[in-house]
């Protein structure tokens, strides 16, 4: 299991559009992927789970991957977040 913290920098936080990118990315991996914010933990393969975290811009979230491809999964997840979900 790997854990990493990262700051969400895009303008409106994690709303539908970035959540879509997260689910699309997470679903490519066999590993379990979780996002934790404000003490709430959601499965990154569930768009609703991510949406209800209501991650605000500037917030720091914790990413957790565990499984056979956890390293690659973490790398990709960090990549999309760092790149502001390829939106702005």
């Amino acid at each position: 299991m790997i854990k990493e913290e990262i700051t969400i920098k895009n303008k409106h936080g994690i709303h539908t559009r970035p959540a879509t990118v997260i689910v699309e990315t997470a679903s490519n991996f066999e590993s379990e992927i979780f996002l934790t914010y404000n003490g709430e933990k959601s499965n990154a393969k569930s768009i609703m789970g991510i949406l209800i975290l209501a991650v605000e811009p500037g917030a720091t979230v914790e990413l957790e991957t565990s499984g056979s491809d956890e390293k690659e999964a973490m790398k990709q997840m960090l990549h999309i977040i760092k790149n502001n979900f390829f939106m702005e």
Partner: protein
Amino acid sequence: MKIFKGKKISGGITIGPIFHLKKNDFFIPQHSIKEENIEKEFLLLDKAVEKCLVELDNIKALALEHLDEDNAKIIEGQKMVISDQFVLTEIKDYTKTHKKNIVFSYFHVLSKYEDILQKSFSQYHQERKGDLEDVKRRIIHHLISDEVYYNSTLTKPSIFISRRISPSDLLQLDHKNVLGIISEIGGENSHVAILAKAFRIPYLSGVKKINEIIKFEKIILDADENTILAGISEKNLNYYKKREKLFLENKRKKITEITKETKDKVPFNIFLNIGFLDELKMYNHCLTEVGLFRTEFLSIEKNSIPKENDQFNIYKKVVQEANGHKVIFRTFDFGRDKFVEMLDLNIFHGDESFDDWGGIQFCLENPEILRSQFRALLRASKYGPISIMIPMISTINEIMKTKQIFAEACNELDEINIEYDKHVELGIMVETKKILDILDEAAEEVAFFSIGTNDLAYFLFGSKREDGQIKNHYHPQMFSSIKKIVECGKKHNIPVTVCGEMGSDRYSILGLIAVGIRRISVNPGSLNTINSEIKKISINKIEKIQDKIINGKSAFMVFSFLKDFYYNELSDSY
């Protein structure tokens, strides 16, 4: 007593209790299910999800083609919400544990998520919440229409009130129990508006304080005066009761015969604009030709474009109901609000790019849709006379392409030996600015013209009214354009009909007749008024006012002139 203001969409007055449709409630039936039926409920959900995903795929393709990737992404997000396995599992678990029907379980779980979003999200997210609402409505719509649960909700005659009413909401109700309609959002040309006018249901839109109105048990909806009155004393109620009685009497008064000539025996044709089979049934005692059958309503009812066979079945019923009278079908006209409402998505609302993307353009870019509609219509032609009319034409190239697709449809039917009327005529709507410049060429290619005055006015003057409250269709330029179209029709020997709102308006119709129109297709709600007006008109008198109208200085002046003419010449002394 309290007074609320709104904007009249469909006239009339009614007094009654309120039925408040809260969008989130969406008529959710709740009942317990037996253990052995749980799997059946699950299957319903899986099917509904599948259907929604197909629908959303179609919408996404359209969004990609006509909007941009951002909008397509939003729809991708909606697809994800619908197929979110974690949520679906939670719903099924709820069904299992609480032994509740799947619609209720779905509603319960989704509402929980909605509440969380509501509490935690910033303004920006609040707006995005609409996406979730769309998704919820879409799934529930499928679940419910599959279960056929509607119908018992509005059991007594009531005034229907909601922030926004979609055509499917109204269609699912028994319109006989809808005394009136009040909404905050909804325009004059929305489909709910057309439905309300068709069934002569008083309708006020743009009403702001809905939450205050619903506190009253009984209200007066006075659409004619743009007013809602609540908490009125018994004594004062009498005046309104009398007016309501008069309105209902007029509404029920059946027209016995539609006139075929004016007072001075000049032949004149009145046809009907129809959008639904049910509407046609209301007029089967006095049938005349259907000058405009709007096919896009079929799509709105189904929330998608119906398959060829489903279309055929409906067209066939319409043709049979018309009982030997010709029906002019207009092919799908997904302009502006129509298409948007069909998709029932918040994101498209107010999108300017849809403005120049209506009518035939949509069909020519999706030729298979048009071809299958042609095939369905041709197959129906075996059961009675029909013509086909193409909306929003603006170039000869569009006419030629359409004719090409029509010929292909004919060939396809010939190949498989399906019978149809080989003489079905193709005509066009004259309703764009561009078509006015190529009328002669167009007349060579088609069998008839039908003037869509609403869109023509929009294309000539935009949606803004130049003279404040006076409708643009009183603009002198409208009348000179129509005169030009009439003359072109005469020259090429093809019939010209007006099927827009102008023909259903007691004043503007005088102007139409003055510039040579002898065929109109009216909204059913105006049939009585227009029919009795035509019987009072003498063509030789009206022809004399042509110059006055065409040379009028403004819409307001033409309006005033026609109104004066009406009261001086056509009131009872005439």
